[in-house]
């Protein structure tokens, strides 16, 4: 649900990074936080366990600036990836405008990726809003590691919507901003009327 405040001339969009545990969702957000000028971003909020695993969500607001007289912001969230936190994931998805599904490219993480992808769609379908109006991007993370799936195989498994695919290594920043820009553009395109 894009939040449009005509009086304050503001639009806020919500983007959620989704994926299995340790796939690199928080790493994406942390990289963006490190690289972006403090004037264009807010505080990075993380609700994590003592072992730095996400417990509830990470949150980072980013400002695009003023577009056609409207201050435009993107609020980035991550979900906790571990399977037993599904109630928290549903809460974070409320009012979402765009989703980045972060896939761990390693062959050994096949089951976790598929479970998380199916869980994403279960949770989206439970919401009363139509998922076809969401911006969706598939980020294939950890492309720098050995023993990984091909892009074609992962696309076959985790992209039934034919969404844009970005190869990434979130730790070093490869593909991180490309993913962000792609999902932001999708979100705006989906929210605009023809």
């Amino acid at each position, binding site marked *: 649900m894009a939040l*449009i405040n005509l*009086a304050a001339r503001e639009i806020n969009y*919500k983007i959620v990074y989704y994926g299995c545990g340790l796939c690199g969702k928080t790493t994406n957000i942390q990289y963006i936080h490190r690289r972006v000028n403090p004037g264009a971003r*807010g*505080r990075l909020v993380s609700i994590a366990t003592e072992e730095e695993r996400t417990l509830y969500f990470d949150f980072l607001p980013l400002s695009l600036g003023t577009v056609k007289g409207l201050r435009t912001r993107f609020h980035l969230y991550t979900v906790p990836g571990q399977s037993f936190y599904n109630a928290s994931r549903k809460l974070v998805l409320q009012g979402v405008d765009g989703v980045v599904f972060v896939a761990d490219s390693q062959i050994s993480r096949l089951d976790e990726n598929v479970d998380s992808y199916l869980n994403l769609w279960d949770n989206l379908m439970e919401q009363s*809003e139509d998922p076809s109006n969401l911006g969706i991007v598939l980020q294939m993370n950890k492309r720098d590691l050995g023993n990984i799936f091909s892009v074609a195989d992962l696309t076959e498994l985790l992209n039934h919507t034919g969404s844009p695919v970005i190869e990434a290594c979130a730790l070093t920043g490869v593909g991180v901003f490309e993913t962000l820009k792609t999902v932001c553009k999708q979100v*705006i*395109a989906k929210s605009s009327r023809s």
Partner: protein
Amino acid sequence: MARRKGLVINDEQMQMIDGVLTKLQRVTGSQFVALISTSGQPITTAPADVDADTLSLAALAAGSFAATRQLAEVLNEREFSLLFHEGRESNLHVMQVTDQILLLITFGRDTQVGRVRLYTTRAVEVLKPLFEDAEDSDEGEATTIDKEYSREAGTAIDDWFPGETDK
């Protein structure tokens, strides 16, 4: 399935809403009053300045309230419509206005909780119909998020964070 609808607040509605918040802040003697969406985005505040901490506060309060609602469900309670955190120096009170809107208020030790509860409840009675009108309307969205906005935003995103995308 219904088309996803944004919440659109026009100038007139916002003036009335800001009037209610300013009055609420005055009569309760509170530090800060904000209306936020249940998805964690600030809508308007009294005083009016929205800074980075307001964005964090909105995201965290909405998350906390959402968790409270789920707690109610687990306990077979229809709803917990109120969330209250008591601190040493300041307190946080969050109340549901509509399915999409929360009213957040912070106040110090010199303000009585009962006073905040009483006036917050009255404010919610005034705010609720205003937001129900805003939720029912997509008129502003149609005129605001048009092709031109989409094109200009696309260009702004292309120019966003130069030097980072090539990595």
